[in-house]
């Protein structure tokens, strides 16, 4: 049981080319920004829209094939489609909505009461959809969808129109309802968290092109190209030039070292301590590039996570930056940095730090918290220095003694200088091709 999709369709100025295979029982997330062609792809699978060419196959049955002139109408595809706003028929009751998917009378009499019970809709079965809560509407839509006995289920941004608290609740209900479904499933979303929580495989789509689906862990830990990095939430992306063992970022005036195996860094390769270029006017390729000639240079995109940047320890190789903005976010502090070596107005570097002191309601303490400080100490009102003589450099010792006023670590202020370190294995490099930022 699987769904095989390989279709092309002109979409105004751009074109859609979607190619992926979904195995039964392994929901695939189709992850992309709005306007990337996610919904169009689903509508082509369901038969609502017609691709220009290609092939769609479900369980060995051809749904669409341009070469063979096959184009089954939606009625004969047995593809269940959960619409973003559920598309319940507004003039029918819940019961009538579900019955609409059960034209056969014998089956209706048998299955309708079962579905109403299973989806806890007995109490509202005679009500019109607009009188239902969001949760009941979603359950009614799911009951109607499953009543049609689909062989494949497509979810078109099922949660994106909802407020956060309701969203979490409905996401759970959706997971529960679909647990028993054994066929292929495609979950369209622009929310990487939603993709991560609900699917094992993720297919990134951008400007109408899909990337081959990957296990979600691979996608988020080691993106293969710029689009995957951006959809995976990698905050820092710059244009760069790669030499044999370093990469230059002209906009920032930086040269960063690379681990010895350049493309996907093995964890063993440490950054060479002398490799950071601290001067803007230093010739590119000078640092550690034995060949140093332009033949070995290639334009690339350089990407790294904000969490991979960290304040450098004393003596560690680092590049000096100026703090240009501090954003106190729910899940930590974003520090926007401008490298001293950069000219003019470069796009800022983003660094993510945990809150300091750790806020008990938010994320758990991480590296910046001095050892021996746990949320319980703070709650009891005692503030004592850690046993260890020297606190870690990122949390200056003064912050240990002064009562916390803000969640921003002390020593961080706009305009201040900060030495920043970045490990070579945290850097992702992508072929530039013909894409631009």
């Amino acid at each position, binding site marked *: 049981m699987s769904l095989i999709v390989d279709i092309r369709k002109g979409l105004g100025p751009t074109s859609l080319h979607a190619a992926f295979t979904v195995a039964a029982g392994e929901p695939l997330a189709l992850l992309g920004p709005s306007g990337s062609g996610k919904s169009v792809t689903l509508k082509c699978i369901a038969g*609502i829209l017609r691709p220009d060419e290609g092939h769609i196959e479900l369980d060995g049955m051809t749904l669409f094939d341009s070469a063979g002139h096959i184009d089954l109408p939606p009625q004969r595809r047995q593809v269940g489609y959960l*619409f*973003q706003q559920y*598309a*319940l028929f507004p003039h029918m009751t819940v019961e009538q909505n579900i019955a609409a*998917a059960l*034209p056969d009378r014998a089956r209706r009499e048998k299955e309708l009461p079962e579905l109403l019970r299973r989806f806890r809709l007995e109490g509202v079965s005679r009500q019109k959809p607009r009188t239902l809560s969001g949760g009941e509407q979603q359950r009614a839509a799911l009951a109607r969808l499953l009543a*049609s006995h689909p062989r494949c289920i497509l979810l078109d941004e099922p949660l994106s129109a909802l407020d956060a608290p309701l969203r979490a609740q409905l996401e759970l209900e959706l997971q529960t309802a679909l647990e028993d479904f054994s066929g292929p499933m495609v979950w369209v979303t622009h929310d990487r968290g939603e993709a991560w929580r609900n699917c094992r495989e993720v297919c990134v789509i951008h400007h109408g092109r899909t990337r081959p689906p990957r296990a979600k862990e691979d996608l988020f830990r080691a993106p293969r190209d710029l689009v995957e990095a951006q959809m995976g939430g990698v905050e820092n992306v710059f244009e760069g030039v790669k030499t044999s063992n370093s990469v230059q970022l002209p906009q920032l005036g930086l040269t960063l070292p690379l681990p010895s195996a350049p493309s996907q860094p093995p964890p063993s390769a440490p950054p060479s301590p002398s490799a950071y270029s601290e001067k803007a006017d230093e010739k590119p390729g000078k640092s550690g590039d034995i060949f140093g000639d332009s033949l070995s240079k290639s334009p690339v995109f350089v990407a790294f996570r904000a969490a991979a940047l960290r304040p450098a320890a004393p003596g560690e190789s680092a590049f000096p930056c100026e703090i240009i903005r501090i954003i106190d976010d729910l899940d930590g502090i974003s520090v926007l940095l401008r490298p001293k070596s950069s000219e003019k107005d470069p796009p800022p570097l983003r660094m993510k730090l945990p809150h300091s002191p750790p806020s008990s309601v938010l994320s758990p303490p991480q590296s910046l918290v001095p050892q021996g400080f746990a949320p319980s100490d703070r709650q009891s009102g005692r503030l004592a220095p850690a046993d260890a003589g020297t606190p870690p450099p990122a949390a200056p010792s003064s912050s240990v003694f002064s009562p916390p006023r803000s969640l921003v670590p002390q020593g961080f202020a706009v305009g201040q200088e900060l030495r920043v370190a970045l490990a070579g294995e945290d850097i992702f490099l992508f072929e530039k091709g013909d894409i631009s930022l």
Partner: protein
Amino acid sequence: MDWFPLCNSLRISAISTVAVFFLGLWAAQEIARLPRLAKGALDVVLTLPLVLPPTVMGWLLLLLMGPNRPLGAFVGEVFGLRLVMQWWSAVFATIAVSFPLMYRTARGAFEAFDPALGDAGRTLGRSDLWVFWRVKLPCCRQGVLAGAVLAFARALGEYGATSMVAGYTPGRTATVSTTVYQLWRTGDDAGALRWVLVNIALSACFLLAVNLLEERERRAGRRRQG
């Protein structure tokens, strides 16, 4: 008082409204799917009768159905029937004149219809016909009904084209509007006034119905938007 003109007007309007109801729905449904250029062109042609003087419509109808004209001659030869100067000739006139009202109102209602509802019905395995009659039409029923009532009211008030293709024969082709004209022409102001009052009362009722329907449609639309 001879009530024949009223009965005749009502039966003409009723028949033409039934015809215009289905024709208008069909046109509104099919034309929405056409490519843009064809849609624009057909839209102009189908709306023209709304703005043309009814006499122009009458003249065009006579050009088609007159005893010596192509269609008129053909029907005359095959069925021995005259298409003009019958009471039912007026039906052709009222259809031509009231069709744009039904078509445009239905099209407006269809354009506000959420296509996802239709797609949902089709992915659930129901036929296009089922989706049209059981989902689309009920969802658009206020707008569609308003169009039908407007078309009926327009047919009831039709004079120009009717008088040209059906003429005025008392007791045979007379309608309310042609009777008013005839009574005024012969100086029977009192008789004309009676029919004028009947006409005003009827039309006011229909317009009231249209307003109520449109009001309900607006309320339903607001509810849907949330």
